[in-house]
Every structure is written in C-alpha cells, then in structure tokens.
C-alpha cells in the first residue's frame, strides 16, 4: 500500500488540533448535567417514600408548609417538613462533602486514587461510633449520659478529628507536614483502628453487632433537622473555601516545590485542606455513617469529562456528589420498601459499574 500524502505534507499539526479538548465546552456540559442531576434527584427525593407525594402534589404541599392548603396537603407538608426535607438536605450535604474531600485529597497527594480515608477521618469516626454502640453502658457511658441520643454522631465527629489531628502531629517535623509520612502513619493508624473495632465486635452482643455493622454501611434513615444543623456549618464553610483553593490545588498537582515557586504558601494550604477535609468528612460520617466510594468516583468522573482544573473539579464534584448520594438514597428507600437498604451498599452498586464503564470507554488516563 502506498501513501497518498504528497511529499512534505504537514499532517501532524492538523492531527494535533483535531485532538484538542475544548475545555470551555466540556465545563459547560459538565456543569449543566450536574446541576440538572442535582435538581432532579432533589425533587424525586422530596416526592418518593413511604407516603408518596406525587410530583403534581408537591407544589401544593410546599405552599401548605407555610400554612395554606387543604387537609391532605397539610399532611403532605408535615411529611415534607419533618422527614423528606431534612433527609434531602442532609443527603446533598453529605454527598457534596465526601466528593469535594476526595478531590482535595487527590490534589494534595497528587494521586487520583487518594481519598479522605488516607487522613484517618473515617476510621477514627468509625472507631468512636463503634465504641459508643458497644460500650455505651460501660466506658462510654459518660458520653451517652452527656449527649443522649446524639452521643453517637458527636463521638464519631470527635473521633474523626482526633485521629486526623494525631496523624498530622505524627507526620510533622520542623513545621512542615510530610505527605509521605502522612500516608504511612495513616495506614498504621487505620490498621490499629480496624483491630480495635474487631476487638469491640468480638465483645459485642448480637444486637450491638447488628447495630455496628449497619452503621458502618451508612444510612440516612435517621435524618433530622438537628443533624442538618450539625452538618451544615462544616459543609457550608467547606464550600465557601473552594474558590480560595483552586489555584493552590492546581499548583500542587505540579509538586510541592513547584507550587511554592508559583507563590503558594504550601504548608498553610496543606493544613487548611486537611482541617477542612477532616471537619466536613467527620461531620458527614457522624450524620450518615460510612459511605465509601463517593470521594473517589465523583472527582474521577469529573476529570474524565472536563480535565483536572480544580476550578471545574471542585464545584462539579460538589454538585455531582450530592446528586449521587441523593439518587442512591432514593434507591435505598424504595428497593426493599417498607424496609431500607444501607446507603453505602447502594452507592457502591450504582457507582462501580458507571465508574468502570467510563474508565474503560475513555482510556486509562485520569
């Protein structure tokens, strides 16, 4: 076979231009799809449940919330206000926090597979939660006495922060936090927490064992306005922080020395990101238990669609993470109704195939 190209034809430049990603268009499509997904899942989450509120009835139920409407609308309004609305808001906040935390961890670890688990938040929160479940009448009795029904989320939040704080102290020397030391110390503390949880599971009776197993699978069944109010400050602060972190996280992808050359105060930014991640993830885990996968899959999908610029990755991850957890929670509520499936299972069942499909379709790059 002979080439039809004339001698000296310049094909390479044309070829390269054809491969150029149009980032502005990709970003627009991604934001539009994420916002739409968030809106649709939020509306469905308000409408679907044990007492179905049809989409037609939703507007009148919402007006009834403010004191206007017939008896049926009033009942729907009550369901909406006391059950659906806090659950929907909590699901969105938890999803946004987990996805954004994943994106930030991948940025400071310069690794697309990093997740908040690396800084010990989830293992610390889980250990504290399991301690309250199993030893609520023993060593942990003062915590239960002090916080009553909120003892478990409060302990989980404190446990998550405590383990991350310990890790940062262990990984610091001469006022700098070593990311490599953080990773290694995180593995060790994670294994230690796992061992202690194993010990507690061994000590637990059947009811406690079931409770702790279900808690580690995650659920939004216990959503309440109290939990919304508990999580909201951390979620909102975390989201407000994002615009300030875009340039720093982009620079950190080049390496810590390069980020410093570009004018980024690397140590301060690393600490800020670790604190923000620990607080928001600890709050999310305290409210909903352990929900894995969101922090890895959502930012990954976002990067596949629109590239690694954090100006796109952070806000799109927040929206898509919220939409994913809302969608999973809807499935969890209806698939075995009137019972509920643990949310963590559903997230993994929805997320894994989608993730696999995208990775296989778009090639290996992150």
């Amino acid at each position, binding site marked *: 076979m002979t080439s039809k190209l004339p001698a000296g034809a310049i094909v390479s430049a044309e070829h390269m231009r054809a491969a150029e990603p149009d980032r502005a268009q990709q970003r627009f499509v991604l934001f539009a799809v994420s916002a739409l997904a968030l809106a649709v899942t939020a509306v469905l989450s308000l409408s679907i449940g044990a007492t179905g509120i049809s989409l037609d009835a939703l507007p009148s139920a919402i007006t009834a919330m403010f004191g206007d409407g017939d008896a049926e609308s009033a009942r729907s309004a009550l369901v909406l206000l006391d059950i659906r609305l806090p659950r929907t808001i909590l699901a969105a906040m938890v999803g946004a926090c987990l996805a954004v935390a994943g994106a930030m961890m991948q940025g400071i670890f310069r690794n697309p597979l990093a997740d908040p688990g690396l800084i010990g938040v989830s293992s610390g929160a889980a250990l504290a939660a399991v301690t309250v479940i199993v030893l609520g009448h023993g060593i942990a009795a003062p915590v239960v006495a002090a916080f009553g029904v909120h003892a478990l989320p409060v302990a989980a939040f404190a446990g998550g922060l405590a383990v991350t704080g310990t890790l940062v102290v262990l990984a610091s020397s001469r006022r700098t936090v070593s990311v490599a030391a953080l990773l290694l110390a995180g593995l060790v503390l994670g294994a230690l927490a796992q061992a202690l949880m194993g010990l507690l599971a061994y000590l637990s009776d059947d009811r406690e064992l079931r409770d702790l197993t279900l808690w580690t699978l995650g659920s939004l069944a216990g959503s309440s306005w109290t939990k919304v109010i508990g999580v909201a400050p951390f979620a909102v602060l975390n989201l407000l922080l994002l615009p300030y972190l875009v340039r720093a996280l982009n620079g950190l992808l080049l390496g810590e020395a*390069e980020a*410093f050359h570009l004018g980024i*105060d690397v140590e301060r930014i690393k600490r800020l990101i670790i604190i923000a991640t620990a607080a928001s993830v600890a709050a999310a885990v305290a409210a909903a238990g352990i929900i894995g996968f969101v922090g890895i899959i959502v930012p990954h999908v976002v*990067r596949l669609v629109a*590239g690694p610029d954090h100006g796109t990755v952070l806000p799109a991850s927040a929206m898509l993470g919220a939409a994913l957890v809302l969608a999973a929670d809807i499935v969890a509520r209806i698939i075995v109704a009137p019972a509920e499936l643990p949310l963590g299972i559903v997230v993994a069942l929805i997320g894994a195939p989608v993730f696999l499909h995208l990775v296989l379709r778009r090639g290996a790059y992150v």
Partner: protein
Amino acid sequence: MSDRADVLAAQSVSYRVHDVSLVSKADLGVAAGEVVAVLGPNGAGKSTLLKVMAGELSPASGRVVVDGRDLAILKAGELARLRAVVAQSSNLSFPFTVREVVRLGVSVPGLSRENPRIERAVGDAIGRVGLAAFSGRLFTELSGGERQRTHIARALCQLSVARDLAGGGKILLLDEPTSSLDVGHQVVVLEALRREADAGTAILMVMHDLNLAAAFADRVVIMSHGCIIADGPPRQAMTEAILSRAYECPLSVGRPPADGIPFVIPALGQAKAAKGARL
C-alpha cells in the same frame, strides 16, 4: 562587586544536611539582563545552591537578597511575583493541556480566568518555546523535551504576567533547562532565554553542557565540592586548569581565533592514563 546592582545575590550562603556541607560560603550575584551559568560535576552543589537562591531551601548561614530585600522575609506570593523557577524534573500525572500548565504560571491571584491579557501572555509564552502547535495537547502525552519546554513556557508566562500587572518578573532560575532537548530545540530555548534577558530579566541556570554554556552565558560560575572555585566570563573562567580541577578529569580547552569562545573536549587518552596511574 560593590558597584554591581545585583537583582539576585547569594551572600556567603552555606547549606548543610545532617552536618554534611553541600554548599559552603557561596557568594554569587546576578545583575538585571545578565545570564549566568553554574557549572560543575555531579554533586558539586549546583542544584542545591539554585534551590537556596529560589527560596526552596533555607540556608544554614548567609543570606539571599532578592531585588534588594532579604529572601527570608518575603512571602511565597511576593517571591513568585519577582522570580520564576524551572526545576530539573517535575512530573505531572493529571491530564492538563499544555495551555493549562502554562496558565498555572499566572501567579497574581484574583485575576479572572478568561482575562484576555492573561490568555495572550499564555499563548505568547507557548509560542516562544516553539510549542504553538501543541497548546491543546495533553501534558501527559508529551515527550520529555516537550514537557521541559512546557515548564519553561510556564516560567516565562509567570514572569511576563508579573511584569505587566505587578511590576515584578525580574529573575529566572533554571536547573538544566536544555538537558532533554535536541540541538535544534536547545537553540530555540536558549534564544528565547536570551530575549528574556535582553528584556531585563536576570537569569541563573545550572548547565551540564560546557560548550553551550561557553557560547551562551555572559558569566560562568564553576563549583566543586560545594565551593565556587571560579566566577567570570567564559573566556577567563573556563581554563584547562580550573575545569580539570572541578571535574577531576583532564580536559582540553580550545579557543577558535574567530571569536575566542572556549570549547572543551575531554582528553580521553590522558583520562585513561590518569586512571591507570591511580590503579
């Protein structure tokens, strides 16, 4: 040295790791518009000195003065508006395009993403290193030389934006900027750097290619075992005695009568003889 207006100066800088001295009492100044090449064998302390002068490492003693101010008191952001750095190697495992990597060089915070002046500076920097046809390509799919030129473009972009918008952009530090380039692209990059110097930028770079340094640098600084053993124009500093001592290997220096720029070739037979003698 006192009448020189150095925009970047190391003053008696020493750097140690666990009591091993990597740089000792180095004095080195670079004036605006000047290109200074740091030469020396592996492990002589060239990259360490560059990192200290970039602010990446803190000297054990001595100080670095940047644009008349002690580097130790400058914040990362202020420093980034005065100088840009191209490191020896920096990998990136996320699929940024060339244009996105170069845009990372925009170190003045708070500028809108689609600022036309920024976009022009980014495109201009990409063109200066000969990557115009590659601006939409993914960094992760580039060759080593293309990646190196992308990082140089990022530094040039950092300087030009800082100069236009913040009155800075005065110093450029590079660690072996031509190491993975073919000869044609070495010329492209060195000419771009020369134009940058002509615009008033002080350039300090670590080089391995002695002949390229002799032909290109205004001044060469030769290091050996952490000490600066010679500092001057290539014609004066690059002598057989100094180079052979620095590299611990017999070198021949020739000077074509046309321009007098020294060229260096290893005296291979003598090297063998010297090794034989040592055995």
